[in-house]
């Protein structure tokens, strides 16, 4: 694989063009051309498609699109272009089976295929959702770390330090990022899982200097910094600086691609192609150990819509059949904690992802943006579902996802917000209230009765209550 230094050099020497010309003169026409050439068509009746030929056409379209389009560097206003040999070289020699975490919590990230029985990697946590208090922060991390199916943690975003609102790029941002890492380490220690890997380091950080500062206060080489491209097929020096630092520090990278459904990539067919095209970009430019896509609906702000699930499922199949870089899907759902709808939403996108070869990061509730609307119960449910459907056929999964979508898709615009963490949990003991436990049990029973979901474990709800 070509070196990162070579990629950086191309950011300074690649063809010059304006951002507007890249968007409307290069990106959009190139994408439209390959979507038509390879007959990529959205099928709303099959949110989880089961067509290997279609998946491979998406991959072929994506490689052609990437070759002709490249990645736009916002700071130099130049395109970073890759040759076919470089793309193929990256796919052939990219990372495989990286171990995340330390001690008894260390585990290799699996490469999975569509309909694979290999258990998916489950990252659990608030997925960067904003949290207002350090007490909530530590208790949330502890409860997520107690999830027996959680392989890694995705930490929340701290919004205040010492009563002051954190402003990215300021000293408050540096302190907030450092404190977030220290609080996370303490929460995991309290859960007895000090080696559990953090995979969204460092969510409270905005700028590279904040990532770097926080790294020195508890991010390890077996954790991952989360570094993203800019919508769509763009990069800036701040993100490239994070990559440069991670490479020097020897840390792993979760390469994040938040494609906007309805944005420059257009509809679901374009989104599927762009997600697949990001896979070699994540290797060559972001130097990722994992591809971390989340196609988010432009209007609803979630990844649980029918078209988003289709695009993600199809892209997963395209990628996992053709690349060794593992995929961990992250989801943003509309409903808030302690609602049935949230559990349906998480289940739908998790099922689509897992049977299509992905692993999962569960997950954000209330669009991941409402202050304190997060709970450890929802990712627990999502990870139970993820393990239950490993090995399920895409056809069967499609039927379940269709039925789940019918339960919630008409409510996505005005979803139930549910309860804040401090309302559905006892924040001192860190335990969920009884009503929440009953709701969890009820939906779990429903998933068994309606869909025959084979839950595989007797799970300990954080707070100490067993059930099966």
């Amino acid at each position, binding site marked *: 694989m070509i070196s990162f230094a070579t990629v950086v050099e191309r950011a300074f020497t690649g063809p010059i063009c304006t951002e507007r010309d890249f968007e409307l003169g290069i990106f959009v026409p190139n994408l439209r051309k390959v979507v038509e050439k390879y007959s990529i068509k959205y099928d709303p009746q099959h949110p989880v498609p089961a067509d290997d030929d279609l998946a491979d056409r998406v991959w072929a379209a994506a490689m052609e699109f990437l070759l002709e389009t490249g990645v736009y560097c916002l700071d130099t206003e130049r395109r970073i272009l890759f040759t076919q040999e470089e793309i193929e070289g990256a796919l052939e020699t990219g990372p495989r089976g990286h171990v995340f975490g330390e001690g008894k919590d260390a585990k290799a990230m699996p490469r999975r295929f569509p309909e694979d029985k290999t258990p998916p990697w489950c990252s659990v946590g608030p997925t960067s959702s904003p949290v207002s208090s350090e007490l909530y922060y530590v208790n949330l991390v502890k409860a997520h770390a107690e999830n027996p199916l959680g392989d890694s943690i995705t930490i929340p975003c701290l919004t205040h330090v010492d009563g002051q609102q954190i402003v990215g790029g300021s000293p408050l941002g540096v302190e907030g990022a450092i404190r977030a890492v220290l609080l996370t380490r303490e929460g995991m220690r309290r859960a007895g899982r000090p080696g559990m890997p953090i995979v969204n380091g460092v969510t409270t950080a*905005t700028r590279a200097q904040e990532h770097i500062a926080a790294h020195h206060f508890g991010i390890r080489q077996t954790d991952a910094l989360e570094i993203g491209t800019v919508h769509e097929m763009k990069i800036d020096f701040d993100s490239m600086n994070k990559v440069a630092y991670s490479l020097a520090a020897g840390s792993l990278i979760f390469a994040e691609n938040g494609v906007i459904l309805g944005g420059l990539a257009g509809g679901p067919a374009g989104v599927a192609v762009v997600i697949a095209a990001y896979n070699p970009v994540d290797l060559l430019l972001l130097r990722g150990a994992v591809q971390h896509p989340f196609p988010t609906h432009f209007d609803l702000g979630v990844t649980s819509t029918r078209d988003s699930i289709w695009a993600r499922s199809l892209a997963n199949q395209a990628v996992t059949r053709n690349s060794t870089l593992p995929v961990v899907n992250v989801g943003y759902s509309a409903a808030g904690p302690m609602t049935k709808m949230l559990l349906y939403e998480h289940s739908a996108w998790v099922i689509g992802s897992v049977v299509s070869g992905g692993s999962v990061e569960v997950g954000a509730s209330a669009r991941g943006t409402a202050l304190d609307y997060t709970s450890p119960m929802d990712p627990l449910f999502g990870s139970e579902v993820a393990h239950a459907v490993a090995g399920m056929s895409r056809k069967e999964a499609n039927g379940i996802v269709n039925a789940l979508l019918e339960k919630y898709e008409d409510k996505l615009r005005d979803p139930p917000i549910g309860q804040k963490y401090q309302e559905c949990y006892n924040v001192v003991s860190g335990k969920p209230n009884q009503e929440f436990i009953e709701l969890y049990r009820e939906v779990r029973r429903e998933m068994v009765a309606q869909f025959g979901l084979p839950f595989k474990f007797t799970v300990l709800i954080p707070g100490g209550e067993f059930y099966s």
Partner: protein
Amino acid sequence: MSDESIYERLGATIIAGDKDKLLQAVEDALREGVTPSDIIEKGMSPGMKEVGERFTRYEIYLPEMMMAAEAWEYAMKFLEPKLLEAGTERKKVGRVVLGTVKGDVHSIGKTIVGAMLKMSGFEVFDLGVDVAASAFVTKAEEVEANIIAASALMSTTIPQQKSIIEHLEARGVRSKYCVLVGGGSTNQEWADSIGADGYGRTAGDATALALKAVSKG
């Protein structure tokens, strides 16, 4: 060619986002004796309205919106001198200074809002991303804007929206502008807490708020 078919052609080229074909349609319409004002009001504007409606129905997406808006602006550069000659300068619905706040490089949501505002007849001054609070204010003063619209995606960048309001207050011009905020980490509660005049969760919300603001004067 009948007036109806001339207007249909103008609308269709706007919807297609083809600026060269639109300009050709405009020139042909002028040769047929259609006034610049009718070209805009009866041909191009209905086309723009249709684009906006298709977008809200998820039938088209951002690229089609951007191309339609570009085609509109391209044709208007040609038509505006002719409107002036005819003494019928077209009144804008209002002027909006738009941008993503300092420290934040997320542009898609802001760009969608900009395109929808243009569809609704606003003159939009898009400052791009990572925009300093003072730059919003300076531009608003320069172009005599009605509205300042600031986008922020992250919970660590939304404080910059508050900073814009503080800069307006420091310059003593807060009451001149309607300040709208939006973006993933914002909500009505946040907008209220910083003294913004409105919060738009979606581009459609932002446009409705902007129209309401200018209708109040």
